[in-house]
């Protein structure tokens, strides 16, 4: 299936929201989504959930002959697959670019950083070594696959236990898990990738972009780091120009995030080990809760309503009581009625605030300042509501309502003059900037 196209209005909204430092799910700029790690019954099997992005990791091992030029080292093999259930756009054979990019990044992060001691995987030099294979499957795509995949890979590797082997002279004995407890891999450090998405040519940055944010981003910077603040991999894609202080700042943020994530991983591993030792129940059936379709349960969405309070308090402090909302139409004359807020004529208000002239006087200026904090785009329209409005297209300046039996009265000027009388005394600050005859 083709990917759902991103509409212009979504793109515009997302970019504007990012400029105002707002994200769709209410996170802050440097916030990660909630990370959940759950383990399966086998050693080396785990599912990592980064928000709604889910990656399943499975580690397995096999005794093979080593590579000819590396006779004393074990072999590591990484494979990330984008399952078709992750996103409608993932079809077999369709996602090659993204797949290659992710696989390369994962390999550089895990293999080149030498996080696993490959020498310890050697059994008989030149003949038998362990081949460790890490298979990652993306189960759901909601942005930032690489972070989730790197966490899943390192968690699975830390969780994995390989069968114990003993070498006596020429004899190699491989013990089953029942005979001897399996042995964990020797891992030096845990490299974790942190992604930074850049918008508006590097002006704004977001950590852990979600799927929609990834669609509108200009470029992506991935930094793989461990908790000792050593950078393992650095990759910048998208062709954006980054200044060196931006990259340094990102690396500092990455250091903080990696420390938090490493702590989370350690805790999860310890918990699982404790449960297994105590003989409690472990595995996916226990750790992943059943999602029933009729259950009234949802993760808390951190929607930030604090801004709304500040803004509302400012405005309420200076506002006149809002005009009542009239739900029954007020009939001015047969054929013309009004309904909704205020029963004031707003036919002059146009969508585009640039078209309106600002005719406000000094009293309007005070009004505008307090409101300017809250809204960026709609300020000019506030000022001009009480001032003569010039319609660029229309030939008539005033709207005339013809009433049978009466001389035509000009409604607009009346309201304007009425308001201008009111304005100096009351300083009306109305929260609504755009008014439409019928809401």
């Amino acid at each position, binding site marked *: *299936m*083709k990917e*759902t*196209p*991103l*509409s*212009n*209005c*979504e*793109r*515009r*909204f997302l970019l*504007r*929201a990012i400029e*105002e430092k*707002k994200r*769709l*799910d*209410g996170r802050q700029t440097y916030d990660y989504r909630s990370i959940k790690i759950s383990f399966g019954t086998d050693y080396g099997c785990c599912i990592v959930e980064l928000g709604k992005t889910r990656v399943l990791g499975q580690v397995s091992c096999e005794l093979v002959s080593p590579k000819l030029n590396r006779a004393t080292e074990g072999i590591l093999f990484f494979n990330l697959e984008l399952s078709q259930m992750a996103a409608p756009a993932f079809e077999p054979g369709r996602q090659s670019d993204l797949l290659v990019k992710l696989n390369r990044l994962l390999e550089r992060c895990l293999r080149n950083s030498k996080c696993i001691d490959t020498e310890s995987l050697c059994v008989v030099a030149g003949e038998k070594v362990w081949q460790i294979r890490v298979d990652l499957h993306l189960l759901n795509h909601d942005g930032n696959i690489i972070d989730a995949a790197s966490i899943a890979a390192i968690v699975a590797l830390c969780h994995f236990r390989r069968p114990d082997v003993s070498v006596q002279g020429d004899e190699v004995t491989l013990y089953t898990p029942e005979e001897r407890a399996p042995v964990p891999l020797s891992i030096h450090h845990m490299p974790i990738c942190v992604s930074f998405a850049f918008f508006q040519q590097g002006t704004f940055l977001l950590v852990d972009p979600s799927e929609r944010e990834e669609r509108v981003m200009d470029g992506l910077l991935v930094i793989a780091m461990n908790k000792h603040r050593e950078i393992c991999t650095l990759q910048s894609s998208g062709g954006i120009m980054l200044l060196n202080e931006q990259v340094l700042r990102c690396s500092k943020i990455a250091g903080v995030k990696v420390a938090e994530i490493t702590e989370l991983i350690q805790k999860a591993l310890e918990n699982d080990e404790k449960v297994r030792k105590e003989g409690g129940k472990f595995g996916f059936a226990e750790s992943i809760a059943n999602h029933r*379709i*009729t*259950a*009234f*349960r*949802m993760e808390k*969405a951190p*929607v*930030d*309503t604090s*801004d*709304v*309070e500040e*803004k*509302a308090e400012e405005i309420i402090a200076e506002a006149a009581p809002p005009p009542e909302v009239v739900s029954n139409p007020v009939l001015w004359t047969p054929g013309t009625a009004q309904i909704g*807020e205020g029963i004031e004529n707003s036919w002059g208000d146009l*969508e585009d605030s640039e078209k309106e002239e600002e005719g406000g006087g000094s009293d309007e200026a005070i009004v505008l300042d307090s409101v300017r904090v*809250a*809204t960026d785009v*709609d300020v000019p329209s506030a000022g001009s509501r009480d001032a003569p409005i010039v319609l660029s297209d229309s030939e008539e300046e005033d709207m005339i309502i013809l009433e049978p039996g009466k001389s035509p009265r000009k409604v607009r000027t009346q309201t304007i003059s009425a308001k201008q009388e009111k304005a100096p005394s009351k300083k009306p600050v109305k*929260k*609504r*900037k*755009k008014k439409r005859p019928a*809401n």
Partner: protein
Amino acid sequence: MTETAVVAAECLAGGRARAARSVLGQVVLPGEELLLPEQEDAEGPGSAGERPLSLNAGVRSRVRVVCGPGLRRCGDRLLVTKCGRLRHKEPSGGGGGGVYWVDSQQKRYVPVKGDHVIGIVTAKSGDIFKVDVGGSEPASLSYLAFEGATKRNRPNVQVGDLIYGQFVVANKDMEPEMVCIDSCGRANGMGVIGQDGLLFKVTLGLIRKLLAPNCEILQELGKLYPLEIVFGMNGRIWVKAKTIQQTLILANVLEACEHMTSDQRKQIFSRLAES
């Protein structure tokens, strides 16, 4: 719900079709057969062997019953094809047996004739626009299907714009076709949706709930902030409020309405109304 599922399983195992009237409001599973009211007598207690002879053997009262979504006609009975609750609506104008349908929940949309949907324009080719509506194929929209459009006066539609229209052709054999005018030639609210605002996706069941008459959620939302909102039956909602913050709050509240009981919802709305 588990009890009714167990009951349903027993009935299926017994192989007897149930009367539709007795299952109203309960969960039905795909594969079940339902009897319409006028057939219940025929299958009643006399089905074992003796059936009372009726003198007008050839004449059977026929009542016209409409099969809604999730049901299919199978001989004289209704065959359930989706799992969900069975609903019935009495005929408004007299005559006919009303409408039966299954209230099911899903996220993936299948185009249905007459549905109003929000689509995204993906391509302009010659005389038609290709509009993605979330179905298996993009729908085609002729440029003449807008109010006031003529060959000289083309509508101002760009790739990536949002369109609110309805389907005139939607079946499994053809590519769906949509228009932005009604049968009288008036736009009636359809056409290109304005530039700002946020588009997001919810389940189809939530859309139907929100579009039901006298929906409480909408009334409460309207009291919170002034807003513009467009619901597409394909699960897409476009919302626009004065500020980005308000728009985000509205989007999050609507997405969460799916999972909240009405008490929780009232709490959230009262909290938002205070702030």
